[in-house]
């Protein structure tokens, strides 16, 4: 699949945003962090900023962004529609929660309930995002039981990185968040590693034989494509990353996405106090960059069954 920048940015940014929102909600409601103005301002700006920027970016991907509102209508069947609805719905409790925190300096009680509802919304939205992909039967690498866990753990992980940074900067259970981030990072890595192993070893779902129905007559090879130039489907669905390149990128994602951040987090844990801000910040940046690489690969490594009409033997 063609890795479109807007979609990669959308899913990673909003994933981190929702991860952060999720943690803010729980932490706020549980009083794990101070409901200070600074924490709240920066935290919610960051969370809403990431979410909103992501959602906006995703509309760049649309041919008719001005009609984006229409995407709400089909929540009965469409995960994309559900995602939109969930995202919008989440804004309400999360917004109230932010209001309580920032304006009234209170994140618990009734405000905390809003916070937890916001967290729930965040999880729901990320699940919807994941389901957009996981529900497509046409792309084996997406239609995986692990797709949702991948989205969730990475969202949680990147959110936790920022949360760790916030609490390092503005107080709270900083080391808990550090360790949470480490844990989330490692589980994201584990889930993703499992995901990669699955997609690498699993049999393709479709072959040029079943695509054309000619497989029983022998090996099916494309002699001539319908046009000598590329078309939309070939460009959008036909993107293929070279295996060697993909392996390199997986390693990069693992190193900058998890290994480096975890190392930095450990350093931060060791250093402690205000000085931890620097390594945690670097860890957050590195982890986010890793998530972008991971997401790029999520697209680039995905093979669409339609490619079997255009020369691929299987997908």
């Amino acid at each position: 699949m063609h890795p479109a920048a807007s979609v990669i940015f959308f899913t990673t940014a909003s994933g981190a945003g929702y991860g952060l929102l999720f943690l803010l909600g729980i932490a706020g409601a549980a009083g794990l962090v101070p409901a200070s103005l600074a924490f709240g301002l920066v935290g919610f700006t960051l969370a809403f900023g990431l979410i909103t920027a992501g959602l906006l970016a995703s509309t760049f991907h649309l041919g008719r962004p001005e009609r984006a509102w229409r995407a709400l209508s089909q929540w009965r069947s469409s995960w994309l529609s559900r995602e939109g609805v969930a995202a919008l719905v989440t804004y309400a409790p999360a917004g109230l929660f932010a209001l309580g925190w920032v304006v009234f300096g209170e994140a618990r009680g009734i405000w905390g309930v809003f916070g937890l509802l916001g967290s729930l919304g965040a999880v729901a939205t990320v699940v919807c995002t994941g389901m957009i992909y996981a529900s497509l039967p046409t792309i084996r690498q997406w239609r995986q039981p692990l797709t949702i866990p991948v989205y969730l753990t990475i969202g949680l992980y990147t959110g936790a990185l920022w949360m760790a940074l916030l609490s390092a900067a503005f107080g709270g259970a900083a080391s808990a968040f550090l360790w949470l981030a480490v844990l989330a990072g490692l589980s994201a890595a584990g889930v993703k590693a499992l995901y990669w192993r699955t997609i690498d070893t699993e049999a393709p779902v479709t072959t040029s034989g079943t695509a054309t129905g000619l497989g029983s007559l022998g090996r099916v090879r494309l002699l001539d494509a319908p046009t000598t130039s590329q078309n939309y489907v070939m460009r959008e669905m036909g993107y293929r990353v070279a295996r060697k390149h993909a392996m390199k990128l997986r390693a990069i994602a693992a190193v900058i996405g998890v290994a480096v951040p975890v190392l930095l987090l450990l350093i931060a844990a060791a250093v402690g106090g205000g000085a931890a801000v620097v390594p945690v910040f670097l860890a957050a940046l590195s982890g986010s960059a890793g998530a972008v690489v991971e997401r790029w690969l999520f697209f680039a490594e995905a093979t669409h069954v339609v490619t079997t009409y255009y020369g691929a033997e299987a997908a």
Partner: protein
Amino acid sequence: MTMLPATAGTKKLGLVIDLDICVGCHACAVNCKEWNSGGHSAPMTDWNAYSGTESTDGDDDGAWGVWFNRVHTYEVGDGAEGRTVHFPRSCLHCETPACVTVCPTGASYKREEDGIVLVNEDLCIGCKLCSWACAYGAREYDHEDGVMKKCTLCIDRIYNENLEEVDRVPACVSTCPASARHFGDLGDPDSAVSVLVAERGGYDLMPEMGFKPTNKYLPPRPGKTACGSTGAPSRLEQLVAEAADAVPQGKAVPATTGGKMLAWVDAVLSR
């Protein structure tokens, strides 16, 4: 609407494509493009039409554009034993297609009355998700209009009272020189297309997707290269043997006169 029709209609309009006689001439593809250039989904935008003006999305210098029907050519099997199969591909108007259910806006929908899958271009936001969901590459994105387009099964022809009745078939069907394309109601087991499918073992593409395509493909018939496949004796050998005594072996011109040579030719023939 995005939900599939709750009560699937009994009418399932679609195409049956005969791979045994498709010569891969692209007539259906071009005539489709031509009809639809002025039809329901017009225009069928083309980019870089004369090259040198590569549009943002182009990654080669060729022209490219929106087509609802495309003809591939495959080789099946190896060497001389194999065969070449031309393979036209357009929307299959599936019964349970994901292209419809994934659509967030309701732009992509399946008609209850005849099963045709359409895009309402006034609703479409161009999210392209339906094109990801389609297994058959049948959805064509028009960058300029920012909306998805696709085969309409010529909805603006098949019911069109401004056309003579015989012409109320899809453009690709009426133009196909080899008559490799058939149109009809696959929901009616007695329709001509259903009978054809039953007789010829018409099949679904990628059944594993579970989309239940309405369109069917008729397989190429087996080749007739075996001895006796036309009912002919495997060799003329017996005949040659019977004739052998009458034919001079390897003699040069004009040594065949007289004797019983050419006796068979020497029959009395009347003009």
